[in-house]
């Protein structure tokens, strides 16, 4: 049996080791393979926020949890930074149970950098069970959907919530989403019905399905995965975790592409020799 044909029976733990090393080494030793170039979609996301008048009320739903934080957290933080730089009033919420602490962290970090005060410049309404039902009910009344914020403070006592009744007071939705409930539901329940402009930062797994929304004008910008987050970090002027991870991402992708080719060559070698299983 040739070496190539024999590879078909290779212990998969060697592949695991290869992936692990190709992710670990660039992070440990700072390779800097190539600079990150912002795409048109990231520019659309950035420009959509820049076009909103300063001081406007923006909704920032962070619909993700620690499982996808590696992709969503950098884009969430960069978005909070851009919004606060433009003195927007931020109403944040989460439709994933484990989302509110991540939203809290993002708002706290960005708020400290731009000297913003919780309650006055931003609020975290926290989590509400119900998925798209929450979005639909917010269309009737945001205060009745979220009677208290994440800390249990009645929203009618929070300055930034003054005058906020429903989506008519919201100038832009900046959604960071991991899947369901997320961007698709916001587009269906809110954008289509109330015509609020929206941009979305999503995980790479779900990004392809939102391209039709982008092309149809239902989304004004789209960030896909850690690469999208890295592009956006560059535009915001705060390269962070996502930008740092792109070298490891590049090498890992190359490795997986190589594995596909090697696997097929091994299969062909085994079939030709009549060693197929």
């Amino acid at each position, binding site marked *: 049996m040739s070496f190539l044909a024999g590879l*078909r029976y*290779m212990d*998969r733990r060697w*592949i*695991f080791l290869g*992936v*692990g090393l190709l*992710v670990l080494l660039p992070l440990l030793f700072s390779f800097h*393979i*190539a*600079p*990150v*170039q912002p*795409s048109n979609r990231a520019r659309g996301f950035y420009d959509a926020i820049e076009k909103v008048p300063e001081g406007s009320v923006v909704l920032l739903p962070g619909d993700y949890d*620690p*499982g*996808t934080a*590696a992709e969503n957290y950098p884009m969430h933080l960069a978005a909070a930074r851009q919004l606060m730089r433009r003195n927007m009033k931020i109403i944040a919420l989460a439709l994933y149970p*484990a989302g*509110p*602490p991540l939203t*809290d962290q993002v708002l*706290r970090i960005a708020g400290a950098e731009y000297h913003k005060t919780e309650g006055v410049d931003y609020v975290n309404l926290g989590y509400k*069970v*119900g998925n798209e*039902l*929450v979005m*639909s*009910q917010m269309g*009737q*009344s945001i205060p*009745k*959907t979220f009677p208290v914020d*994440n*800390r*249990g403070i009645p929203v009618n006592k929070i300055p930034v919530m003054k005058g906020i009744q429903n989506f008519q007071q919201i100038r832009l939705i900046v959604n960071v989403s991991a899947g369901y409930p997320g961007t698709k539901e916001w587009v269906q329940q809110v954008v289509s019905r109330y015509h609020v402009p929206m941009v979305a930062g999503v995980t*790479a797994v779900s990004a*392809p*399905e939102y*391209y*039709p929304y982008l092309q149809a004008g239902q989304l004004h910008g789209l960030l*896909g*995965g850690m*690469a999208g987050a890295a592009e956006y970090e560059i535009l915001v002027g705060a390269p962070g975790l996502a930008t740092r991870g*792109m070298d490891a*991402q*590049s*090498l*890992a*992708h*190359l*490795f*997986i*592409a190589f*594995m*596909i080719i*090697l*696997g*097929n060559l091994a*299969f062909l070698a085994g079939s030709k020799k009549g060693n197929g299983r």
Partner: protein
Amino acid sequence: MKREIPILITLVSGLFMLLAWFVPHPTVRSAYEGLQNWAIVVVGFTYVLGVANLLRINVRQVSRKERDWPYKIVLLAGILVTMAVGFSEGNHYTDVDSRFQWIYRTFYSPMTATMFSLLAFFIASAAFRAFRIRSVEALLLAIAAFILMLGRVPLGAAIHPAIPAAADWLMEIPQNAAKRGILIGAALGVMATGIRVILGLEKTYGGGES
């Protein structure tokens, strides 16, 4: 009556929700809003039911000393300690220095993230062992995958600027067309199934024998 009443409840609530979407009258809107709040509350109770069921099943497995029963004790301890800490802190459970947030940062967050990160290894292994290019369709799939994998990372642009441009074109035109077809088809399916559920024609949810 055990079958008819649930079907009637679904019919009334579903039809009202559908029709109220088109009616801006304040009284109808108020009822629409109220019904949605009720649904939020009931869905909340379903989460509690799920965890109560988890407790019931694992307590039974521990009491009967079934397979892996010592690990079930760990599971039960996890549920009960987290709940006790969370409820004891009340509204302060979201404070950064609360014990509940410490449990979130120390246990929930890292374990969730690590569980998902295991997939990276398995996708690499599957790429080697299962991705077989044996037809024209599979070849098209593989070419698209290669272009995307290289085009969406900085390495692709470093090799040649045409790679990220090709990835962008692929996503904006052929991928978009197919995904849109899937979206439209799925939308038709969801609408048809939704109407069937509301009218009681779908009996899988409990209209039949339990």
